[in-house]
């Protein structure tokens, strides 16, 4: 895979996860991911981690970091994608009439 293309994939992933992180922190209700009873701190913690993962993805695209760290950060990104995917399907299933 070309270097710039990989960076852009990382950037897209960073953007998606970052936006999700920001959304979890600022507009959790708009995501329809949690019930009203769920503690706000759940979304805050998830948002912080998601945003941290997003920034880390950006950093590995720009800075020269060890391969192990890249692997860890990309794994975290994959985790968050799958996490959000699960939540979205779960929410979709809940909302589906």
């Amino acid at each position, binding site marked *: *895979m070309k270097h710039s293309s990989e960076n852009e*994939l990382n950037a*897209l992933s960073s953007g*998606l996860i970052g936006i999700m992180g920001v959304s979890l922190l600022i507009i959790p209700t*708009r995501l329809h991911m949690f019930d009203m009873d769920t503690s706000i701190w759940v979304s805050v913690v998830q948002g*912080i981690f998601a945003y941290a993962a997003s920034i880390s993805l950006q950093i590995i695209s720009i800075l020269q970091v060890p391969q192990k760290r890249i692997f860890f950060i990309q*794994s975290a990104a994959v985790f968050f994608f*799958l996490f*959000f995917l699960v939540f979205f399907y779960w929410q979709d299933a809940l909302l589906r009439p």
Partner: protein
Amino acid sequence: MIFLLIAIMQLTLLTPLKERFSQLDLLKISFILINLFSGIYLAVSGNQYALVNIAPYKIPLVIGFIGSAFLGIATLFLPKLKINIMFSRTQAIPWLIWCAIFTPSLSAANVIAPALLSISILFEGLLPWNKLSVKSNNVLAQRVIMTTSTLEMAALIFLSALLIIIDNSSHAGSNTFITARDAAFLFFAVISTLIYYVTFTVIMTINGLIAELTEEDQDKSDQPDEANGIHWNKRLARYIKPFMYKQEKVQFRLNAQTDQISSLTHQLKSEKKRNTQLILLMELSQQLENQLDQPVASQLTVNTLERALNCSLVCIFIHETDEKEFMLLAAAGSQTMLMPSGFRQSSSAGVIGRAVRQRKTQIINDIRTDADYIRFENESNLSAVIIPLISNGHVNGAIVFNSEKVNAFSSIDIGLAEAVAAELTRAWERSSYHHRLMNLVQAGSQLSAMVEPETTAREVASIAREILQARFTFVQIQLGQERNFTQSASSGEAPRLLESLENSVGSESLIQLAFHAVQPFRVRDVRKYTSTAHLSIDYAGLRSMLAIPIRWHRMSIGTILAFGKQNEVFFNENDQSLAELLAIQAAGAFESTWLQQELRGSLRTTSLLYRLSNQIIQAENLQNAALDIAQTAHKLAKSSVTGIVLLNLEGNVAAETMIDSSGTHIGIDHPMEIINDVMISGQLIYLSQGQSITRACLPIQTPIRKYGAIWMDIPEDQGHKSTANPNDLQALVNQTAIALERSVLLVESRRQATEIKAAYDMLEATYDQTLAALMSALDARDRETEGHSLRVSHLTAKLGQTLNFSHEQLKVLERGSLLHDIGKIGISDTILHKPGPLSEAEWKIMRRHPDIGARIVEGIPFLQDTIPLIRHHQERWDGTGYPDGLYHEEIPILARMFSIVDAFDALTSNRPYRQKISAIEAVDYLHQQAGILFDPEIVEVFKNLVLESQAGLLTT
């Protein structure tokens, strides 16, 4: 779907599949798959999605997703297609529509992700990753990133905490269309975007600065971005500039830049043209460097000017001063046919004449307005430039170039043409110099073959005139230790100048000044120079002068004066350098000629003196010798009158003669006064006789004797010096004196030798008579042998004559025979005159007489040669003789001859004990004893001698 596929792609990057898909663009594939599966999903799903009815948009969206996915696939298979970028970007369209559909529902999950995807598709490949990439040693950029990220993170957390606090305090509901959280989200999104923009800009600036400082190569992996033709500095500038200038300022700046670009473009064109012209000039310069042919150099020049200045006609004229005309030498351009071959124009007419008069370039921007310009029929030229070719103040030619446009030539063009003219002038000068140099080299070989001084001087003057291109040349040479070799010659027509130069020779004027100069010097006007003011020149063209000293071995031997440079006003440096070479060649030629003349003179003198020496020795008398001496002196000194007086020992005139143009005279009056003076002084005396005649008188003397004197009337040369070489005259008298002395000595020697010979002969006769008397006395002791010695002496001499003995050998033989028994003096008379036979003891004594005889004559020098005969006359052929018992040829031949004659005389003489026998019988006896007692060969000769003698007696 987006999250799923992106997650799959990210997962791919974590697995070994990353290496397998290393050549694929996973991002593009992600976009294609996302669109494709989204389209399929949308097609198979219901009309309700996330509480939004999408039925009206379903089919267009499905078509959009799937269609754009296929366009994306097409870009993968046709990567070189120009519209690939547009095809790729079309994948964003359905997602933008999607965002538009779902934005009113405020479903962040359904808007934000598609929006981000759309942005990613639209900006795919546009981010400058090569400029954003931060190396491990770039601490500053790392700090910026980490600080920005930390601040952003902190700001987000702070904002979130603030919102929670606000929520808890206000209990604001979430059913409002735009809540504070929504606003905060949007605010943060905008701020975050700005932060990213600023951060990226700062990082790129830092990277750029570091790259400039380190000059490192860019990462090769980022080359594809560059290959796409995206220049990020420009792109960035495009985004930044609008924020930096106001519209009117930008417009003003734009206009100014446009003007500047136009000016620079014009300047660039001019520079290009100038550059081309300079290249052509450089090429021409190189071509002319080695071009020694004047017409070819001119043609090269017109060709170059025609190309460089885009002329319609370029001509080069050569100035023929004598004809006062300019002649066409070369032409180029489209209107060359206007100029007939060999075209000539007066050097005083037209613009060319004006250029000659003013000696500067004539620029005619419109020839219709210039009255001096002479137009040809059908000439379409409208502008012209005439550049005179000036060398050392003289116009050698002119370059004329025309154009069919008015004001066609700029100052740069004219400057270039003037540079070309200067280059051509130098080329012509080189050509002329080379031509003259070659002539000089050839002239050198001619000069080296010269033998006559006069011819050499004339040739040098002629060559100097040709090489130096002078109107008149004068050569003056003074060679030899006494400066006695002088020669002058001239070339060219200038009688007044020649006369004044000839009159100034010898005086401390120009000739001497040039003669003593170390190197050539030039005089611009001889009339204004103190040392040359006395010269009167025939016409003004002779006023410039080049004086060349001729030096040989650091000694001045002459000078060449060249007057009036042909076709030019003054002599230049080239003439001076050629003059130096000419002076070297002339010096060699004159030295050679002088040496040859000296050699010839020496040979002639030597030959004359040698012949004189022989003539004097062979002269029969002193008068003849005097005549020979006078004739030789007359030839050698080239005198008009020559006289000689030779004296005897008493000082009286022994011989005299005089030679003049009418012949030889004897008995005339000689100038005895001057002759007596030189005889007393012993020195050469010169005495002027007036009418350019010098009388020279020299004594003929040796340390032993003074023989007389010779006098000559010698004509004087132009310098009032005698033409005869005094050294030659001195050599003549010396040689004469020596020859006379030798002659006298020779006569004396001959006389003395005759006297000695007579005395010797007399002494020898006296000796022989003494010896004869002595041997007669000895023979008288013994009556038996009386007269024996004289007889055998005569007979042995006869035998020697028969055997062809020399006179000296015969003398030895005769004397030895005469003295053979001289040893008997030492033998007692009792033994010698004993009547009976001798006893053994007596014989022993008797046999000692040859040894005694040898010892007697041993002390007498002129009888030394007789010793062998005296000592061995009793030896026998078979070795039975005494005193040494010699055998065969061991016995000296004189002794062998004598023993035969002695025996013969004894046999033919009476003895008391026997009667003599006849000569025939004696010869028979000798014949019998030949090979026993006597040498058989000599016996044979003696036998014949006796027989012949007997026959002679009978006949008598």
